């Protein structure tokens, strides 16, 4: 019997040579007269083990990683196809790898398990159960279920998803839209990408359910152009879902309609801000809009629009299939369900970690992450993307939930956790925050457009020891102005990483940039 061997093809696995591993496996197997069926699955999200090759055995799937093409002959010699553990790269049963076994995978239950484009696989793993349930229910009923789940926007703003849907449902219009914000621009985040590349039908299903809930017949996925593979996978999945009746004019014979299209961004970070995104979708410059009106009332082309992050929409099929309570049973306080954390940067074992709210950074970075990749001491961590604070060690034991983080001026954001070792120069990081804002500001409001340029200059003067005290005071005032006077989070939150660096790592601002640090 032919043995099934899995070689992932998400961006990370491919970036580390997964295609070459797959080719080598096929060639070696052919030369040796071995029968194997190669499956190109998604990634399990254990990035440090990629390319992670799995073999199906009677006991379950057995993992090997990270595999280089040159490892393949020895792996076959030592019994790869029998799932033998006679090789240094053997990791045992995949599901028993502690990093994976300790997680609570609700949204990411299928990633890496299935062939991302196989509808058969998707159905075999609970796929489309949420949509089938939604098709039998009234719109208000679906909205109530999402409200009861406690789901809050996973893009970073944490607004209750059900409330947003209610507003769109309650606003009469000839056309409504579901827009998925897949402009995952925060450094350190890749959960949206994994969801789209490894389980695209989950997002399609979530968007179709949202359409049924609010009465929208057209959806758009606004995807960043930096994700070429996700574009390919989503386009293919949408075509297959249409052919199978999960999208189109007659969803599963119900007479209900939902069409879906992927639209590419064009390398503008600001288009992750929802109103800028809508402008871009309309074919314009991505300038931020004033709010109100809320997009839920006047959104895309002036019509009521649900704008949700990939992970918010991706959580919906589970909620509809298993019930709101099953989702809300996870988490703490007002942060219900699970959070997809992404362990990134200078980390030994980086990857995707889906856990109920309430875990600590220390658990993540030490127990899961195993410390830094460089082996040096961990010094700072930026949680939530380039607009969120850098946290020093004294803040690594707070429980990860929206409210606790907000209390100390930090953010959970989209769940990115970027680790830095003790070679980091926090003044340089603060400067970069301002520089990034300068590059990516949409230019509509002055505090953001001009403030970021002035911010770079002031930090340069501080680092060069020019009028240090006066410039430090000026930087404080500038940050205050940007925070209070900017139109959106771009200018409004850029001061957070800057101020946190100043507050927690003041020594780094005391020395010349080219200082002789170890």
């Amino acid at each position, binding site marked *: 019997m032919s043995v099934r061997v899995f070689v992932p093809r998400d*961006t*990370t696995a*491919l*970036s*580390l040579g997964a295609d070459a591993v797959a080719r080598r496996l096929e060639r070696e197997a052919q030369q040796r007269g071995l029968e194997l069926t190669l499956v190109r699955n998604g990634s399990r999200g254990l*990035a*440090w083990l*990629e390319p992670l090759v799995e073999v199906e055995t009677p006991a379950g799937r057995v993992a090997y990683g990270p595999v280089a093409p040159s490892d393949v002959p020895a792996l076959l010699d030592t019994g790869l196809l029998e799932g033998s553990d006679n090789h240094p790269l053997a990791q045992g049963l995949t599901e028993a790898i502690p990093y994976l076994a300790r997680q609570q995978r609700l949204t990411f239950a299928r990633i890496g398990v299935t062939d991302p484009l196989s509808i058969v696989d998707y159905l075999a793993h609970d796929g489309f159960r949420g949509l089938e349930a939604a098709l039998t229910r009234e719109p208000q009923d679906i909205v109530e279920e999402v409200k009861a789940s406690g789901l809050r926007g996973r893009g970073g703003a944490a607004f209750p998803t059900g409330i947003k849907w209610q507003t769109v449902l309650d606003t009469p219009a000839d056309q409504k839209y579901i827009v998925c914000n897949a402009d*995952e*621009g*925060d*450094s*350190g*985040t*890749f959960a*949206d*990408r994994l969801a789209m590349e490894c389980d695209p039908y989950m997002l399609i299903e979530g968007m179709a359910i949202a359409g049924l809930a609010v009465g929208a017949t057209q959806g758009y996925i606004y995807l960043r*152009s*930096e*994700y*070429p*593979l996700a574009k390919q996978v989503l386009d293919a999945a949408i075509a297959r879902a249409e052919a199978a009746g999960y999208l189109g004019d007659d969803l599963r014979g119900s007479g209900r309609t939902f069409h879906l299209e992927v*639209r*590419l*961004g*064009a*390398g*503008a*970070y600001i288009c992750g801000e929802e109103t800028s995104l809508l402008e*871009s*979708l*309309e*074919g*314009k*410059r*991505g300038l931020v809009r004033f709010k109100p009106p809320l997009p839920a009332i006047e959104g895309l*082309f002036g019509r009521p629009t649900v704008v949700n992050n990939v992970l918010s929409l991706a959580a919906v099929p589970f909620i509809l299939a298993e019930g709101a309570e099953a989702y809300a049973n996870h988490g703490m306080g007002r942060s219900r369900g699970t959070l997809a954390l*992404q*362990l*990134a*940067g*200078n*980390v030994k074992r*980086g*990857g995707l970690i889906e856990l109920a709210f309430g875990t600590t950074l220390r658990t993540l970075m030490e127990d899961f992450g195993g410390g830094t*990749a*460089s082996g040096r001491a961990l010094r700072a961590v*930026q949680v939530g993307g*380039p607009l969120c604070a850098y946290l020093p060690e004294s803040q690594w034991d707070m429980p990860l939930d929206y409210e606790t983080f907000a209390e100390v001026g930090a953010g959970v954001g989209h769940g*990115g956790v*970027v*680790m*830095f*070792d003790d070679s980091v120069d926090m003044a340089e*990081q603060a400067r*970069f925050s301002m520089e*990034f804002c300068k*590059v*990516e500001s*949409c230019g509509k409001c002055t505090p953001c457009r001009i403030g970021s340029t002035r911010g770079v200059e002031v930090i340069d003067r501080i680092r060069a020891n020019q009028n240090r005290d006066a410039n430090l005071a000026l930087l404080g005032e500038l940050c205050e102005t940007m925070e209070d006077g900017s139109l959106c989070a771009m200018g409004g939150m850029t001061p957070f990483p800057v101020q946190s660096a100043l507050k927690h790592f003041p020594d780094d601002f005391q020395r010349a940039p080219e200082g002789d640090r170890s």
Partner: protein
Amino acid sequence: MSDSREWTPQAIQAEIDALKHKPGALLPILHAIQDRFGFVPEGAVPIMAESLGQTRAEVHGVISFYHHFRTSPPGRHVLQVCRAEACQSVGARALEAHAKKRLGVDYHQTTADRDITLEAVYCLGNCACGPSIRVDDEIRGRITPEAFDDLVDELRTQPLEVIG
């Protein structure tokens, strides 16, 4: 560059006509033009403006707003180096300095032999395995300066690979 990449007003018009029925068609049209010709030629602006009922200034404004769109032809390969925080924490600053030195160009510039255009990018979503770069549509992780040199050699020798 092959002939199929040479733009003509007719070819531009064909790309526009295939997409202009879509709501908010300008970005999809710009992508289609850049995907086909490698850049958005200045001469395409009035054609787009005319077809979409917009002013040239509006179309130009959109092109110049987005980092992705370029108005001059790139080299045979576009190489993007990630400058964002997760890559910074594992040596992206040293990598970008190395890349500029090795190629002898700054960002938004093309090597004299027209092989490689160097660009900055802010996150490729490969943040657990940085530093990351993108070569055309392929993303590569854990790029050391040595790996970068190997890649550049590989890109520059590719046209000669007919015997391999």
